[in-house]
């Protein structure tokens, strides 16, 4: 009994002294998960399937921005104006490359199956094949080692919260992600494009009868999801570097985040990502580092078993 108490108090002690740093790191990670989760949840909305190859969109975005920044910055240290420009270019290259890969993916791995009205299993297999193909191809072409990205700005601690230093990097991630997520939320909620996506997600058949172009809506959905995924690849790559397998773990966690928030639900993906980032960050205090990835997985299984509709709920289809 007292053993357990000692165990807990020791861990809570760690938690106590590292609470703020863990929170800050968790939020930053959480935003990256949110950005990736958007892609899962939007594609799920219109296609009713999990885009297993989304991890490779993330990876592609990371590499695109790596190559661009490497060419532009090299080993120099950019000025303030340069930092802003390079950040913008990094975001753009990551996002656009993610978009491109997403469109190709839809074209090659999904659309032929959609034309044939294939069973769901076929989509899953095709997507897994595509993912496997892409990251291994990246490994072959770009080498199978981690590449650190040329830094658009010098990372240093900006200020402290309750004594915990907050790094520039975190601020950048949070600011960019929050702005982009807000933008997306507005696009989905107010534009014609967003209405089309929502209509298809609600009831594809009726939407097509009402004149929504399904094919086009699906492509646009992939593009939006791809942009956010690629952008996340850039933000992630800035601190962790890029490598051909970089998509696997973050994407699995982002998927968890999408399910946690309620798959098919855009705001759910944002909330789920943040929540997962924070919970995972704090679990470092309790779980052996080797098993840290198990935490997200355990959350995934738990959510799927206990509340498969997630926090904000998904839209359920008819069954009979």
């Amino acid at each position, binding site marked *: 009994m007292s053993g357990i108490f000692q165990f807990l108090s020791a861990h809570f002690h760690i938690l106590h002294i590292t609470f703020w740093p863990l929170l800050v790191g968790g939020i930053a990670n959480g935003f990256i998960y949110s950005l990736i989760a958007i892609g899962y949840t939007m594609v799920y909305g*219109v*296609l*009713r*399937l*999990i885009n*297993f190859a989304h991890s490779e969109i993330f990876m592609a975005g990371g590499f695109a921005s*790596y*190559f661009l920044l*490497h060419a532009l910055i090299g080993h120099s240290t950019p000025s303030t104006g340069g930092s802003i420009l390079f950040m913008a270019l990094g975001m753009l290259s990551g996002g656009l490359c993610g978009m491109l890969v997403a469109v190709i993916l839809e074209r090659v*791995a999904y659309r*032929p*199956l*959609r*034309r044939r*009205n*294939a*069973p*769901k*299993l*076929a*989509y*899953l*297999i*095709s997507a*897994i*094949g*595509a*993912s*496997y*193909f*892409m990251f*291994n*191809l990246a*490994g*072959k*072409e*770009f*080498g199978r080692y981690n*590449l650190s990205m040329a830094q658009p700005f010098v990372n240093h601690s900006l200020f402290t919260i309750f004594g915990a230093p907050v790094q520039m990097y975190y601020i950048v991630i949070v600011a960019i992600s929050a702005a982009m997520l807000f933008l997306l939320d507005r696009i989905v909620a107010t534009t014609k494009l967003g209405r089309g996506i929502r209509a298809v997600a609600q*009831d*594809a*058949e*009726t*939407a*097509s009868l009402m004149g929504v172009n399904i094919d086009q809506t699906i492509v646009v959905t992939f593009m939006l999801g791809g942009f956010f995924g690629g952008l996340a690849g850039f933000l992630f790559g800035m601190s962790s570097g890029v490598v051909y397998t970089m998509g696997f773990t973050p994407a*699995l966690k982002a*998927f968890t985040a999408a*399910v946690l928030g309620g798959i098919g639900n855009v705001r759910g993906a944002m909330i789920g990502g943040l929540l997962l980032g924070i919970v995972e960050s704090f679990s470092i205090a309790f779980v052996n580092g*080797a*098993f840290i*990835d*198990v935490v997200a*997985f355990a959350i995934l*299984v738990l959510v*799927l*078993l206990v509340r*498969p509709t997630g926090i904000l709920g998904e839209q359920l*289809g008819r*069954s*009979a």
Partner: protein
Amino acid sequence: MRSPVAATQIRRFLALLALMAVVELITGPPGSAEEPTIGITRSFSEPTSFFGLFVTPRFVLFFAFTVIIYLVASLWRSQSTSIVAIWNTTTAQPRAFTQRRAVRLSTRGGLLVIAIVLPLIVTDPFWQSSLVEQIAVYILLALGLNVVTGFAGLLDLGYVAFYAIGAYATAWVTGALPLAPPFGIHMDPFFAIPIAIVLAMVAGVILGAPTLRLRGDYLAIVTLGFGEIIALFANNLNTITGGATGTNEIPHFTFHVGPVNYRWGLGPVPYYYLALGFVVIFIVAFSLLEHSRVGRAWTAIREDEVAAESVGINPLKYKVMAFAIGAASAGFAGVMTAAQTNFVSPATFTLVFSINILVLVIFGGMGSIAGVILGAVLVQTFQMFIIHTPPAGFQPQDLYIYLGAILVAMMIFRPAGLLPSRRRRRELTMAEVGKSTAGEILIGEQS
């Protein structure tokens, strides 16, 4: 103004060009972060000499291939109906002949005889051990995954976990792990067979019972995570599994009954016959299963779960059963490998492995026992061939690119596989002729 026909042709040509560029890339020399496009621009070590006449970069060659293939394909398109008609009439009789029961049975007998004499023909030690480690064992695994994915229509991406459980159970029972064997007795690997099978099945039920009620795509992710976690535990629980290095002290199979004493391990051939025997047993058992009430129930669930429930079939029960049976054969394959190689380590038990088995099943034909065996033989032979005689600049991981490409290509062009099962072919072609309103396409309520 381009005519629509010309536009289609240009599109086709560009698509082919893109495809050939990808082929060039994946067959080319490896790139690096500094020179990522080597696969397109360079040849392996030196410029390619074209018929010894002049030097061409690879992309010129590939462009030429593209043009040739395009021309041949156009020709084929314009002539295909007549060629297919001729083919159909000329092969009608032979095909009818192969459909006869007696012929089918004697084909099987013939194949078995070939399998039996194979080690006499294949005498190269590399290929002899490949026959056991890379083909026979993989056939067992493919047969098992075929029950899960082919028969029951469930995508299991963590199939390797059951194989790992089988292998570690063997190591445990024979006393090769840091964890003491049961009752402190170091047993023969033969005794590991029932134990491994039971443990794998129990793991299958424990994983399956809660998760198999999930939708197909969730199941795929959960099983994927499960596979990774088993590997993680194998890697990190040093005092139980031996950690990252695993163990290499697993003994060979031995046989002592009365005066007969036999020990496997003198070369791969005895193992080959042992594996062959088990492969035959599994084939027979799974064929009976396919054509039993259980097999029909799986088909029913796969095609329409709601309808299946309406006639009193409990989908969860049958899915768990498919999982357990698939797990059992993976567990068994684990015993074979562990005993033959004397060795287990977590490095084997990765997602790569699960995907590899999935490729065998998809390539050969989901739900078709003959298909998955053919798939296993072809894909594994291909892989071993490349590993045995690699082209310059080839890295073993490059094989994974091909595996991924096979999955996508099969789903696009031949979803029922090389040797489709009759039921699966009907299912997958039915969707094509069936009416396809937008809603059905999108929702595709099949799984």
